């Protein structure tokens, strides 16, 4: 290789390096995120949820979540509140036949009846928390969104892709921007916008690798309009639980899980 050819090669490398870095599209990144979320679906989680209102008041509740992956995009989730006493036994059961076809039921012990939560409500706040039903109900259907990589940034020392995600059909938010940790393929920060206005943001901290899965142990979501904030702290998490199907029935919902 002559000197001039060497210079040309180095120039080409220099010019093309950024292109290599962005060789992944936003959708590619989210495919990775989706793959990771799907793999993490077989699990049992014990968590504490604390809701802070604008006046500084806080409400604490503990919950247990059971997840079971059925196939690539089908899964079931059972979530049961353990405390406070007013909410003990209140539970939610989700059956996702595909990522776009989900059924959600709720159980309220004092009524002794199961209620179907309509799909239309699933975009809303998850019962007073700052999480949406979607946050709790597993991976979204990526075909319903468009993705664009905006830039790279480092969050809590982790290099991230900053990706803008816009729903193709009208949602409560018009777009969100997610910081996806490179190589871990989990979200470390997220911001939801209504038009240009930031209305909700979340951070995913204390990321530990459990059974080979990067798991944020502290999740915080804040509603900037209501100045309401929710913290979710994972106490224990166990992957590969392989729960039996009978745990994800309406009967089990009435019993409050119990595994």
């Amino acid at each position: 290789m002559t000197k001039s050819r060497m210079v040309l090669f180095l120039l080409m490398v220099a010019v093309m390096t950024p292109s290599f870095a962005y060789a992944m599209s936003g959708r590619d990144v989210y495919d990775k995120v989706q793959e990771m979320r799907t793999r993490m679906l077989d699990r049992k989680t014990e968590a504490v949820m604390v809701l802070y209102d604008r006046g500084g008041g806080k409400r604490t509740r503990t919950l247990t979540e059971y997840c079971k992956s059925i196939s690539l995009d089908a899964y079931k989730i059972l979530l049961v509140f353990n405390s406070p006493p007013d909410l003990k036994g209140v539970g939610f059961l989700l059956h996702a036949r595909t990522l776009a076809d989900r059924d959600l039921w709720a159980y309220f012990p004092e009524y002794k009846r199961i209620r179907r939560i309509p799909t239309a409500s699933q975009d809303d706040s998850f019962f007073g928390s700052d999480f949406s039903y979607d946050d709790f109900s597993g991976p979204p259907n990526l075909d319903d969104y468009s993705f664009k990589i905006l830039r790279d940034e480092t969050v809590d020392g982790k290099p991230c892709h900053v990706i803008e995600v816009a729903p193709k059909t009208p949602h409560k938010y018009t777009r969100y921007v997610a910081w996806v940790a490179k190589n871990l393929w989990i979200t470390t920060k997220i911001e939801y916008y209504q038009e240009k206005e930031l209305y909700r943001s979340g951070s995913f901290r204390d990321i530990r690798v459990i059974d080979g899965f990067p798991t944020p142990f502290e999740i915080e979501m804040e509603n900037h309009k209501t100045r309401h904030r929710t913290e979710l702290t994972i106490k224990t998490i166990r992957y590969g639980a392989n729960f039996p199907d009978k745990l994800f029935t309406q009967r089990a919902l009435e019993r409050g899980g119990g595994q």
Partner: protein
Amino acid sequence: MNLWNLLRYISMKHLRLQKAQIFMAVAGICLGVTAIVSIGVVNRSVIFSFQDSFNRMIGNAALQITGAQSGFPESIIEKVQDVRGVQYAVPVIETDGMLVDGKERSMLILGVDVLVDTQVRDYSLTGESADVPDPILFLAKPDSILITKAMADREGFAIDQKIQVQTVEGIRTFRIRGLLNPEGPAKAMGGNVAVMDIYAAQMAFGKTGRIDRIDVSLRKGENLETVRQAIMDALPKGYMVDTPAGRTRQVENMIAKFQNGFDFISYLAILVGMYLIYNAVSISVVHRRKEIGILRAIGCRRKEIMLLFMGETLMISVIASSLGVALGLLLANSLVGAFGKVISETFVRTSVTGIHVTWLYPAIGLLCGMITSLIAALFPAMSSSRISPASAIRSVPYTEDKIFTTLRLNLGGVFFIALSFLLFHIYGFSGPYLLAAQIMLAVGISFFTPAFLNGFVTLFNRVFASRLGSAGRLAGLNLRKNLTRNAVAVAAVFFGISVFVASSGYVHSVKGTTLNWLDSIIKSEIILSSGHPGSSTNAQIIPLPANMSRELEKVPGVLAAAPWRRAFTDYQGSKVLLSASDYTQYPKRSHDGAGPGFMKNQTHFIPDGNRVEISEAFAAIFSVKKGDEISLPTPAGPVVFKVAGIVVDYSYDSGVINMDIKTYQRYWGDMLCNSFLVHVEAGAKVGDVRDEIQRRFGVDRKLYVLSALEFKNEIRKMLDDMFIFNYALNVITLTIACLGIIVALFASVLERTREIGTLRAIGMLRRQIYGVVVLESVLMGLAGGSLGSVAGIISGWLNLEGFFVASLGSAKYYLPFGAILWALLLSAGLSALAGMIPARRAAKTNIVEALAYD
């Protein structure tokens, strides 16, 4: 000389000089317009309030499905949701509650599926504008309730506070889980609204598994009628699928029937005002006849003279009508609350928070004031144009008797009365035509006032005049001098008194008929209910469990406690009232052996008999006869009932069906009731038993425990409230009538200035002059009062037939003897008072000036 200059230089001068006459004319028209505007605005405000609340409650639902008032199975929702074209089918429970503490304010409690209902109604239940701190707790706890921010601010409530509410299950404690922003349903009923989750509402109000209504929204592009038909096909018979407009129309028609009577009175008030304008312009013509002659002599044309008077009238009427509009709005504002309360207690729950003003009624009032004034001024204005310069300058007395001859007026009277009968003949007693026919009749009779006054004076002259000396004879003579104008004053009194007697006769008959009917059906000594005892349509009643009768019967002194349920059902697309009571129990338990129940011959009401009685209104509306069969929708499907009889029942003007309560409970599965008819054992003191019931049951529930007499007094009070407008309008019409007499006598005194001067010159004393004028006034008042009383009796009977009998059933017309006596006393007394002002003027007449007066 152009008209503008005439108005500017001549009219303005007279308007300034004739302040008293102008004031009275303005007052007459002003009061008439006040009556029209206030009644129109109050009526419109009540309807608007109802529509607004209804629309807020209905949200964007295109259809509403209702069944029996007792509720229907919630499984029906799925059937509706599965219908093609239906986007959302959301369940609703609608019930009344009453805050136990504080002001005991009643409220509408809406039980909705809060997870879906936002798709149909616009709440701030979720989302950033809401203040529901813990929605999961709200859904998880059956005591959760959301109240409006308006109610919280008013009552001093806060989130997480417990409140006690009187419900069908007794007094229940709820916890406020959030506050609703003033949007959608939260703004209805003046903010007296609470929202519960549907399942919590079912538990709280004893409706487990049942709902009251389904609201349906349609998918985009779907045809309303196609979907409506598809839903009807999918549902069992007996469900009513209607558009919100259809449902509001039913209630609006119901309220309109009640309101029509007031329109009649308000339009009569403006007619009385018309007579005042007629008199004021006539006086002006009398006063200015010389000036008219001069104007004519210097070249003013007849048309210009007429336009001069019409222009003056227009100016006066614009001022009077504008004042009337302003006063009408003020009066409406002060009466709307009371009127809304009556509507709310009697017909349908509504919360009128203020007047709703559109341009319509102020414009109607303004136009009515101006047009009637111009019509009233037309004849004297035309007469003025006929005054020849020579006769005016020679001071030939001005009289309209040549224009308005008794024959012409009588013919006019016959024409209007014939027109009135024609309207009755063609349209019967239906609302607006009845109004027009009655006004025609009143106008027609008023045309006979000159003839009547003539006859009245003849009678007076023959019987009384000589006994009253010269004053009596002079008064009789004077009244005949300008019969037409004096007859106008008599007509003003006639209208005032006829409205007073008609209104009193109607009120008296409605009260008498209703109380007599109550006497015939309420045979118990005590009536117990949880809401306003006079509410015939459950507007504010919180039902009680029917099995409470067992507990009531344990109270010492109680012989029997019969539940009485009143609930609405659909019959051929209309809402009718089902009235169910324990007919079979009464004869057995009676202590007098004859049966203190509703009626003695109720043996056909055997529980298995599927027999009903219908009200006369029901029979008339649906053309049903005794022995016919009617099919009624029940939650379990349609059931056929045989009509065993047609009875008088004024509970509901769209029709009442009476049946045995066991039959009702069996088919409707509704174990609630609105009230209990409690029979007291012989020898037991009613007061003691009532107090004991209150002591035992009044802790858990807010109860009205009334003796039969107290109950009837409550009904009487409610009826009084219903007719509050009648009383206000009576005052207005009588005031206008008084003004009419004053104006007429002023004209008479003015016209006779020289004659009075002559009488004074030949030795008549001031007090004698005074006495003559007052006597004339009293005679005119008595003539108007007598004719008005007769016309009022007829009009009252027509009102009863048109507004009560036609919608509720046969009723007896009670002659309002008291009111007639009052009418005569008032017409004589008020006329005497009205006559004092011109009498004083006549008595003070300066002899020299009077003799020089031309």
